[in-house]
């Protein structure tokens, strides 16, 4: 099966080589970080978590979003997602892998990574995050592996798949909930200490992930001719629309609570985000970009006429993805530290090395995704090779069904 990824067009190989190039550069940077310590990043005692953890948080959302195709397809037998389900699962695999890589590169002592397993401490949410992320990875690998190989052989997937699929649905919710709890349980950081954080994470996940999936599907269609079907894209577009609307609503709720209550500790963070605090305005242009993109996306998405036009949908999905990436991948985590519990306003911007390592991890994710999609597309496209074969195939299937009906009568 994996050997399908070992042959491909020139374009495919150039793309892989580019990704490997980025990964190689990132790896060099990571070796530097390993030998010199996290001093090579822009982090410091006041902003101890930054770019890496923010990317991790964002990607957890992308991973969880697979459930938005898996659930309708497996549980409600929504046939239109037939060609998309495995793509969603593969996206989840790639995203979770990136999440785990981001955690690893953020660690001061990656060599002791097994301490988290050897000395588990259930009171720590990192422990639960490790459990849920790895569990989700295993679930998705098992499910996609079993269903896909059964499909390839033309037989029914084994019976244990269905329970796993059902398990994977709450599990997807749990990875995001646990990640939200990672933040929202901290008395020291009022910006995060809000009960709505988990639902907010879920809403943004169910917008960003499917938006990415739509973009990838459109890209696949253009590059390889593999078409998941209009219906699937449309349904997913609707999901993005509603999720995005809910997400924006939740943000407004937060802004309201913080500003109307007037508690300075709560307010300062939003001030920093949208207007800057004590001259620190690094995030201001970003956040406004995000807001504007959100509004544009919402307009495009909530108008059925616009949404149903594939190129506009693509633009809207792009806008959603970027808006949410800024929101989660930049704003969410850093703002929690600014101002600090001591009221100081530190500066943080990721260093070049940090960005390069981050890029390399994204490239690794893209590499995994490319390879998995290559396998999926090659296997699915093997037959029929020609138009006549498709026609003939349909004829034979129809005939078989007719015979079955006749036999049944």
């Amino acid at each position: 099966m994996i050997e399908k990824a070992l042959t491909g067009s020139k374009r495919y190989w150039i793309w892989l080589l580019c990704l490997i190039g980025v990964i190689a550069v990132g790896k060099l940077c990571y070796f530097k970080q390993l030998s010199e310590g996290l001093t090579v990043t822009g982090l410091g005692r006041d902003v101890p978590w930054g770019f890496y953890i923010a990317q991790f948080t964002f990607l957890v959302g992308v991973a969880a979003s697979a459930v938005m195709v898996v659930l309708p397809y497996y549980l409600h037998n929504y046939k239109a997602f037939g060609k998309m389900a495995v793509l969603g699962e593969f996206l989840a695999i790639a995203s979770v892998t990136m999440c785990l890589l981001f955690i690893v590169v953020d660690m001061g002592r990656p060599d002791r990574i097994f301490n988290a397993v050897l000395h588990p401490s259930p009171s720590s949410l990192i422990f639960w995050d490790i459990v849920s992320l790895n569990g989700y990875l295993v679930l998705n690998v098992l499910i996609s592996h079993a269903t896909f190989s059964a499909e390839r052989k033309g037989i029914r997937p084994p019976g244990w798949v269905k329970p796993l699929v059902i398990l994977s649905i709450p599990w997807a919710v749990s990875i995001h909930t646990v990640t939200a709890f990672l933040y929202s349980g901290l008395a020291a950081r009022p910006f995060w200490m809000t009960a709505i954080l988990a639902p907010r994470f879920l809403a943004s996940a169910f917008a960003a992930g499917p938006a990415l999936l739509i973009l990838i599907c459109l890209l696949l269609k253009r590059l390889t001719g593999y078409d998941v079907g209009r219906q699937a894209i449309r349904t997913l577009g609707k999901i993005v629309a509603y999720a995005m609307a809910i997400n924006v609503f939740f943000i407004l709720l937060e802004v309201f609570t913080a500003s109307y209550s007037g508690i300075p500790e709560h307010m300062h963070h939003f001030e920093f985000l949208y207007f800057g605090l004590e001259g620190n305005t690094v995030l201001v242009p970003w956040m406004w970009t995000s807001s504007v993109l959100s509004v544009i996306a919402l307009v495009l998405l909530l108008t059925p006429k616009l949404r149903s036009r594939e190129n506009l949908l693509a633009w809207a999905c792009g806008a959603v993805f970027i808006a949410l990436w800024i929101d989660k991948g930049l704003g969410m985590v850093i703002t929690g530290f600014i101002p600090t519990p001591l009221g100081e306003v530190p500066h943080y911007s990721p260093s070049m090395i940090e960005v390069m390592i981050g890029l390399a991890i994204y490239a690794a994710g893209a590499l995994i995704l490319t390879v998995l999609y290559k396998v999926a597309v090659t296997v699915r496209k093997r037959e029929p090779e020609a138009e006549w074969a498709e026609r003939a195939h349909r004829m034979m299937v129809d005939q078989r069904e007719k015979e079955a009906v006749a036999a049944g009568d």
Partner: protein
Amino acid sequence: GGPILAALASARSSTKEDGPRWAMVVDTRKCEEKGDCMACSLACHQTHNVPEIDSKKEEIKWIWKEPYKHAFLGQEAEHMRHGLKELPITVMCNHCENPPCVRVCPTQATFQREDGIVLMDMHRCIGCRYCIVACPYGSRSFNWKDPWPRGDDNEPVDSPPNPDFPTRMRGVVEKCNFCAERLGTDQGPACVEACECEALIFGDLNDPESEVRLLLEEELSQRRRPELGTNPHVFYLV
């Protein structure tokens, strides 16, 4: 439901009723008299081989001075005594009764002893920095780089001042340990020993005769961010 909630919140509080419960009292008035005194900080850092790092971003400190408005964030009033807002207050790890740093540590590298001291096992720490994120007092420092860089011969370039105390490696967190290594001996904490004006008082709260107990009974004390439920065991006499 109450007990369950309480249990959730204090999942890791493991102090015992009967043994000692160590605490520190900081008499800010005495300290203020001494002006720019840094003796406690210097002594502690020498004793514990805490390196001096120039960058504010990466500095490591176990005990230091923080302006009142930061140390007691939100408690500064507009018309306070002149200068009080900027008054340097000696701060360190509070050895909280209910320490969030312990609760969040995924490896139990940070733990609480029965005598209330929050300690670290440097060998176990994986450098995730969740404890730093969770501590509301900024008491924790991370070794962003090698604190005592080694030369080609694998010997530290600058020799650490105290050969009897280990150094750290890069990638782990550290903080004030209430001088746990000295408690067994006759010595008290190094900072207490160094403070000439006795602005720092250390002792066992469970001992009704102890100085700290008596002081707290006599004087009005204040703690940092008590509303967060961490129950700090460093008390400030203002």
